[in-house]
């Protein structure tokens, strides 16, 4: 276990954390503002990944694929909101869970019809291949570094939009008192649609970046979505800051657990025991972490106001 290896895995953890954050940010905004639980958020992530792969393969341009994925998920998100989800804001969480569960079945199967069930792999343009040398002896893939950079930039941008702009002010106002904001003459329905669309685009951004790291296939959205739920439970519903902290914690803990639990356990347990226990424990680690956080703070680390 060299320092370089630990450092590389730490960065991989941050990279996973950043992806989780992009999903958690959109989900937590929708949860916090519209009090709406949207299981189909993972489907938008999947749609983003498919958009990026198919458009960049068709056009031969990676950047065109990126643009198509962002625009496509933005439009898809707003469409889903207007057609199906809008009627569910006034319903209880149970109805929302069930209806969006139905949407997931639809989207997963739709992707299977359009692109088949087998996994797709996206290729990278030459300028994103290769490694960069961070400092003496420590090299890191360019692409993963870019993912981290993009994710952290989005985090800063989101913070700026929510706390420093008029749109952000409306979003916060809508979260604390919907009726009052509507009475003041703001078109709250439009605001909701816009917020939903941007949340979808963030999920699409995560999806288009995921294509080169993970496999793209129907159902990919739900695997990550459940981890995103863990992030939100740890961070606190409705809190963007909580989403960022929670995502980084979950990303790092999960990655480090998978990479180092076996050697660590092996240092004091018999090899056979460590080999069986480590993968099981590593895959359960973030859920155990969630249970611990809940035992200490039932409403998450950063409870949003209201």
């Amino acid at each position, binding site marked *: 276990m060299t320092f370089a290896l630990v450092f590389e895995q730490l960065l991989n953890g941050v990279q996973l954390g950043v992806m989780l954050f992009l999903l958690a940010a959109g989900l937590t905004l929708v949860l916090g503002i519209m009090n709406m639980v949207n299981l189909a958020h993972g489907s938008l992530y999947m749609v983003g990944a498919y958009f990026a792969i198919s458009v960049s393969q068709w056009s031969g341009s990676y950047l065109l694929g990126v643009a198509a994925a962002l625009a496509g998920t933005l439009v898809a998100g707003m469409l889903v909101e207007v057609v199906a989800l809008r009627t569910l804001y006034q319903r209880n969480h149970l109805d929302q*869970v069930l209806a969006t569960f139905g949407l997931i079945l639809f*989207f997963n199967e739709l992707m299977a019809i359009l692109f088949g069930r087998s996994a797709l792999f996206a290729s990278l343009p030459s300028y994103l291949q290769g490694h960069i040398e961070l400092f003496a002896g420590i090299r890191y893939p360019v692409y993963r570094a870019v993912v981290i950079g993009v994710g952290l930039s989005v985090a800063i941008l989101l913070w700026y939009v929510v706390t420093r702009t008029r749109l952000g002010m409306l979003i916060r106002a809508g979260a604390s008192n919907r009726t009052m904001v509507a009475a003041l003459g703001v078109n709250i329905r439009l605001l909701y649609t816009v917020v939903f669309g941007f949340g979808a685009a963030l999920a699409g951004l995560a999806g288009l970046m995921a294509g080169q790291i993970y496999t793209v296939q129907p159902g990919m959205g739900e695997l990550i979505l*459940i981890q995103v739920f*863990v992030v939100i439970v740890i961070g606190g519903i409705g809190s963007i800051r909580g989403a960022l902290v929670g995502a980084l914690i979950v990303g790092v803990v999960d990655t480090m657990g998978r990479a180092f639990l076996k050697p660590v356990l092996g240092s004091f347990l018999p090899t056979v025991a460590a080999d069986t226990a480590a993968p099981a424990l590593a895959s*359960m680690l973030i859920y155990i972490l969630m249970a611990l956080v809940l035992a200490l703070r039932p409403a998450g680390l950063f409870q949003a106001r209201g």
Partner: protein
Amino acid sequence: MRKALLWGVLVLALVALPPVAQALGQGFYVDLVRRIMIFAIAAVSLNLILGYGGMVSFGHAAYLGVGGYAVAIFAFYGVNSGPLQWAVAIGASALVALAIGAVSIRTSGLYFIMITLAFTQMLYYLGISIEEYGGDDGIRLKARSEFPLVDLNDGLQFYYVVLALLLGSVYLVHRIVNSRFGMALRASKSNEARALAIGFSPYRYRLTAFVIAGAMGGLAGALLVNQVNFLTPEYMHWTRSGEIMFMVILGGMGTSAGPVLGSFALLLLEDILANWRDPRWIGEHWQVILGPLLVLAVIFFRRGLAGIFQKSHD
């Protein structure tokens, strides 16, 4: 009266089904209905906490898995005693429910939904990572559970065992809900603050109900692994939890017949769509039809099937 009539028709139909199906040469339906009834047991148990207790558990598939693993692991080591296997299946599910419930019932609303989902996913990954018992690929059940008087290898006997257990589960939940305990459980659903003010803590009642439901779910798991002779972590897949929830909702939650009707409605619909041959793509991609149907059901069909048979209270 209408309720008694509904139950009479339902039970009669289920008792009469196997001889009728076999006389018509459609023995396949015995197998299908047996599978549906096993899921109905899981739905009945979820209804106890979801319909009467107001706890939106998105992780009920966990107990199917725990029950299934208990039976399959015993069978793996050549221990086929049914009473032992099933007792452990029920006991282990109750323990898992106690652990999950103890943490998640401290929270409510959205947190509760997400946490029950997350814990079930944890068990799912645990199942995948245990190579000893098949990991991802699952494990074949070498022999069905062995009981002194009945033989589960006989499709008919197994059918009536499942039917009896289903009716027993419905009766048990009915008794629980109408007992003092059930009153307290329902009271804490409809008004938690008032329940606290009267002087009882909803937590203990909820947790007890959660454990009972988990144990019944474990029984369903033990039955399911005997039904399909195969165990995979897919038993605990989150879509399973969603399906069981849908059974309760489609049938009408908080009613005794609802979960049973809902299981039949959902699984028969799935079966019809999956076997659709004209045009062929529907059979292959039936979920693309089922998904929007479910969305429509949630939006427009709020009272569930049992609501049709009940007088409107509105």
